[in-house]
C-alpha cells in the first residue's frame, strides 16, 4: 500500500530530514510513526502525499511512484489519501458541514448523495449535532475530529495523520485514536505520527521509530 525504499530527503540549504528510510505498510495495516520532534516524521508523511518529493530512493503509494508523479496527477493521488494535520487546516469562514463537503465539491457525487456522505462522516466522529456551527467555536478535540471527518468523507484507502493528538488532553487524544482504529477495522490503511509513546503502547500496534533520519 505504502512502500519506502532507501528514501532520503534533503531540503534546500543542506538540512537532511531523512537519510535512508525503508519500510512498507500492508493494505489494512495500522502503524504508528514515532520519534522526537525534528526526527523527520512530518517529512515522511509529506512524501506520501507528494507534498514533498524524495531526494533519493522511491516512495510507492497504491502502486504509483510518487516521486515521479506528474504535477497534474498529484490531485488524483491525494483524493485517495485522507490527510489529517496537527493544525487542522479548517476553513473558518464556513460551517462544520461545509468543511466536510469540500472534498465532495469536485467529486462526481450528486448533491444529495454528497450531503448524505458528509453527514455520515460527521456522525462517525460524533459531530453530527454541530454541523451548522462554525469550526472556531469547537474545542481542540472537536476541531481535530472535524479534520478527520473531512479526510475520510471521500472514503480514501489510506489515512495519514500528523500529530493529531498534540495539544489535546488524554481523554480527547484517546478518542481521536479510537476513531482511527475504527476506520482501520473496516479496512483502511492508517499511519499516525505521534510523539506520545504512552498512548501508542496501549494499542499494541506496529510502531515505526524514526531516529536521526532512519527507521530504528
Amino acid at each position: 500500500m505504502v512502500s519506502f525504499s532507501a528514501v532520503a530527503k534533503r531540503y534546500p540549504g543542506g538540512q537532511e530530514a531523512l537519510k535512508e528510510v525503508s519500510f512498507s505498510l500492508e493494505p489494512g495495516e495500522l502503524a504508528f510513526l514515532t520519534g522526537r520532534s525534528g526526527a523527520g516524521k512530518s517529512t515522511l508523511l509529506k512524501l506520501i502525499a507528494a507534498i514533498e518529493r524524495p531526494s533519493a530512493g522511491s516512495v510507492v503509494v497504491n502502486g504509483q511512484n510518487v516521486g515521479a508523479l506528474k504535477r497534474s496527477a498529484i490531485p488524483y493521488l491525494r483524493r485517495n489519501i485522507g490527510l489529517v494535520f496537527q493544525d487542522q487546516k479548517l476553513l473558518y469562514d464556513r460551517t462544520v458541514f461545509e468543511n466536510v463537503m469540500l472534498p465532495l465539491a469536485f467529486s462526481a457525487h450528486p448533491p444529495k448523495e454528497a450531503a448524505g456522505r458528509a453527514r455520515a462522516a460527521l456522525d462517525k466522529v460524533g459531530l453530527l449535532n454541530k454541523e451548522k456551527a462554525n469550526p472556531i467555536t469547537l474545542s481542540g478535540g472537536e476541531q481535530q475530529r472535524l479534520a478527520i471527518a473531512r479526510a475520510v468523507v471521500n472514503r480514501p484507502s489510506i489515512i495519514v495523520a500528523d500529530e493529531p493528538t498534540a495539544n489535546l488532553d488524554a481523554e480527547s487524544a484517546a478518542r481521536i485514536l479510537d476513531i482511527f482504529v475504527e476506520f482501520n477495522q473496516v479496512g483502511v490503511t492508517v499511519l499516525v505520527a505521534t510523539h506520545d509513546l504512552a498512548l501508542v503502547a496501549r494499542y499494541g500496534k506496529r510502531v515505526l521509530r524514526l531516529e536521526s533520519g532512519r527507521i530504528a
Partner: protein
Amino acid sequence: MRAWLRHHRIAFADALRRISLLNALVIGVALALPAGGYALLDSLRPASARLALEPRISLFLEPQLKRADAEALGKRLRADRRIGTVRFVTREEALKEMSSVQGMAEVIAALGRNPLPDAYVVTSKEEIAGELAKLPGVAHVQADAVWARRLAAAAAVVELAIALLSAVLGAALVAVTFNTIRLQILTRRDEIEVAKLIGATDAFIGRPFYYVGLLQGLVGGAVALALVAAALALLNREVGALAQSYGSAFRFGFLDLDEALAVLGAAALLGWAGARLSVGRHLRAIEPA
C-alpha cells in the same frame, strides 16, 4: 457530464459573488473611448466613403456658350472611357436646386437674374480635372477628389488612432483583470491550500477565477455600450438641432448589433485572458507545505 455541468454552475455562481463592480466600471469607461470613437467615425463614414469612391468633377461652362456647343462637349465627355457618369445640369436646374437650400432663396431673389452657368457633373476615378479644364467652352473645373482624398486620409488617421487606443485600453483591461484575480487568489490562499491538499485539480480551483475575469469583462463591455449610447443620445440632441438648420436629418448612429456584440465578446475574452494569465502565474505559487 452532469457533474461537469454542476461544477461549472457552482463556479459561475461563486464568480458572480466575487466580481468587482468597481473594476467593471473602470473597464467600461476604458472601453467606452474606442467604442464611442468607432461609432462616431462609423456615422461619418458613408459620406466620406462615397466621395472617396466616386469623386465628382464639376465642369462649369462659359456663360455665353451655345446649347449646341454644350451638347457637343457632352458627347465628347460621354465618349471618354475614363469618365463614369455624365450629367448635364442646366443653369435653370442649378438655380432651382440652389433655391431649395435653406436661406438661399432670398439671396437668389435679391440677385434678380440667374448668375449660374450650365454645367456638366461627371464622375471619374482618375485625375483628369486639369485636362477637362482645357476643353473648349469650359470656364472652370471643380474637383472634389482632392478634398475627398483628404477626408479619406483623415478618416484613416482617426481609424488608426482608435485602433491604437483599443489596443492600449485592451491591454489595460487585461492588466486590471490580472490584478483583480491576483488579489482574490492571495486573499483565498488558505482555501486554495486546503483545496490542493484534498485533491482539487488546478482546473477546478482556477475555474471560478476564469469566470470572474470573463464576467467582469462582459459587465465592463455592457457598461461601455451604455456609456456610448448615453453619450450619443446627448450628442444627437445638439447635432439634430444643428443638422436641421442645414436641412439635414443627420444623426450619429449607435453601433450595429454585430459591432456591439463584438465589443462585449472582446471585453469578455480579454477579461478571461487576464484571469488565465493571473491564475497560471499565481495559483502555482500556492503549494501546501
